[in-house]
């Protein structure tokens, strides 16, 4: 069960979209998990073949629980969604292909932020007795043998045991909307309280003249069909990402007393949900994408966030968050950092205001950009450099 944000403790498996024997590729959606943030599509981090699933639909399990075993191409069985793999499972059966390397997987392969599960490895001594017919039934009924109580000789799992287990498995219980809203409120409360308790925030603010960026954008949009128009927010997000490439100290995580730079710049975009609550799923690899591509991805992201069908990587990957309350008319917003990230950039309303240009007052579209940052990870000086880099990036919109 991957960690899909600092506020998540457990998730309920809704359904498996892939089953034992199915070939999977990195990025494939293999399961749907229900969380306070809606139904999340769980992506796989490895290429391989699903060997078996260890959690049944309807089961609520803590973050870090192994959901399935995947036999990697040319490697041993690996856990689909947890950081380490028990050498043997609870049945005492070793994985079909022994995988001495599985325990020594490099940290880079861990799902972002996912704590390793503390599952004890089984041993050969507790090898489970069963029969081929029971095992075959278990596969067909998607019953996990490890969770079946055996009533046969010496605790062997019989066909009856498997069928009873299949009957007992409850269908997935998806919380109702009201429950979900309350659960999301509680999750936000926990994450934000933790942020304010643990993260020594500092705050910076600057005013940015957007006249060049908006003039360029209007000219672009005038030539485009309505379905391909780009919102100013996309330019702001792209400018933040470009600035983070220059000043990477704010792109990443504070984990175990140290700053860990993010791999790539994945910008979490705060999206308010109708009926309350918010999520901040990631636009992936922002520096390398054009505003047109980012706009298409943002539209898709907003629509899926609101319909409750985000993907696991979108929730687990953001290396920074950008919030844009300007649409609601506020002049500036100082965000609360979403742990374990180390910064959140906020934009207020874009409004025409007086601005001094070459000694004379001119009317210009201005926006207030703010940075809330983790003082453990960086200092105000660097924060100033980041805001200056955002300003500079917006001066050459054609390069965004």
């Amino acid at each position, binding site marked *: 069960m991957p960690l899909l944000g600092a506020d998540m403790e457990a998730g309920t498996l809704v359904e498996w979209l892939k089953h034992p024997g199915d070939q999977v590729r990195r990025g494939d959606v293999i399961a749907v998990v229900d969380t306070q943030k809606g139904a999340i599509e769980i992506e796989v981090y490895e290429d391989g073949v699903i060997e078996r699933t260890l959690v049944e639909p309807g089961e609520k399990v803590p973050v870090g629980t192994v959901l399935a075993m995947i036999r990697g191409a040319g490697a041993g069985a690996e856990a689909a969604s947890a950081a380490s793999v028990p050498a043997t499972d609870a049945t005492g059966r070793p994985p079909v292909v022994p995988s001495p390397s599985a325990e020594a997987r490099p940290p880079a392969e861990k799902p972002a932020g996912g704590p390793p599960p503390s599952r004890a490895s089984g041993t050969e001594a507790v090898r489970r007795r069963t029969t081929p017919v029971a095992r075959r039934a278990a596969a067909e009924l998607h019953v996990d043998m490890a969770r079946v109580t055996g009533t046969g000789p010496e605790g062997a799992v019989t066909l009856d045991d498997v069928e009873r287990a299949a009957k007992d498995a409850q269908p997935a219980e998806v919380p109702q909307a009201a429950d979900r809203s309350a659960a999301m409120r509680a999750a936000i409360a926990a994450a934000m309280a933790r942020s304010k308790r643990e993260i020594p925030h500092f705050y910076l603010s600057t005013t940015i003249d957007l006249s060049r960026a908006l003039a360029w954008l209007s000219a672009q949009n005038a030539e485009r069909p*309505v*379905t391909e*128009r780009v*919102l100013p927010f996309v330019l702001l997000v792209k400018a933040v990402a470009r600035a983070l490439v220059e000043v990477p100290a704010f792109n990443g995580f504070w984990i175990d007393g140290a700053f860990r730079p993010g791999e790539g710049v994945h910008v979490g975009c705060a999206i*308010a949900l*109708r009926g309350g609550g918010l999520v901040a799923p990631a636009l992936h690899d922002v520096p390398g994408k054009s505003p047109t591509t980012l706009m298409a991805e943002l*539209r898709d992201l907003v629509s899926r966030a609101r319909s409750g069908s985000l993907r696991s990587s979108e929730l687990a990957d953001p290396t920074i968050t950008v919030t844009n309350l300007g*649409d*609601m008319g506020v002049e500036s917003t100082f965000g609360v950092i979403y742990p374990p990230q180390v910064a959140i950039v906020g934009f207020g309303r874009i409004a025409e205001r007086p601005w001094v240009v070459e000694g004379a007052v001119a009317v210009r579209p201005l926006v207030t950009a703010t940075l809330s940052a983790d003082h453990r990870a960086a200092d105000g000086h660097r924060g100033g450099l980041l805001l200056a880099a955002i300003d500079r990036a917006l001066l050459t919109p054609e390069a965004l």
Partner: protein
Amino acid sequence: MNDAEIRDVVFRALSRVAPEASPATLVPGDPLRDQVDIDSMDFLNFVVALHERLGVDIPEADYAKLGTIDAIVGYLATRLAAKAASALPGA
């Protein structure tokens, strides 16, 4: 297409981005964004929905003319009439 039909299309497009928006409670002459909780992405999707249903092009420069339901209906009626006129042979 008469104004009542256009109004119906407008409300259907609006309900796609703001399901809580109801013809019964919205004041057609008051600013839309004061009455319905929509952001710039919602508004863009609303414009796209109007475009898809009516086939009229709505340039970004005209967004400022779309402040109220009445204004939107009037604007669309004008655009539809212009479109119909330009489609006449010899026009």
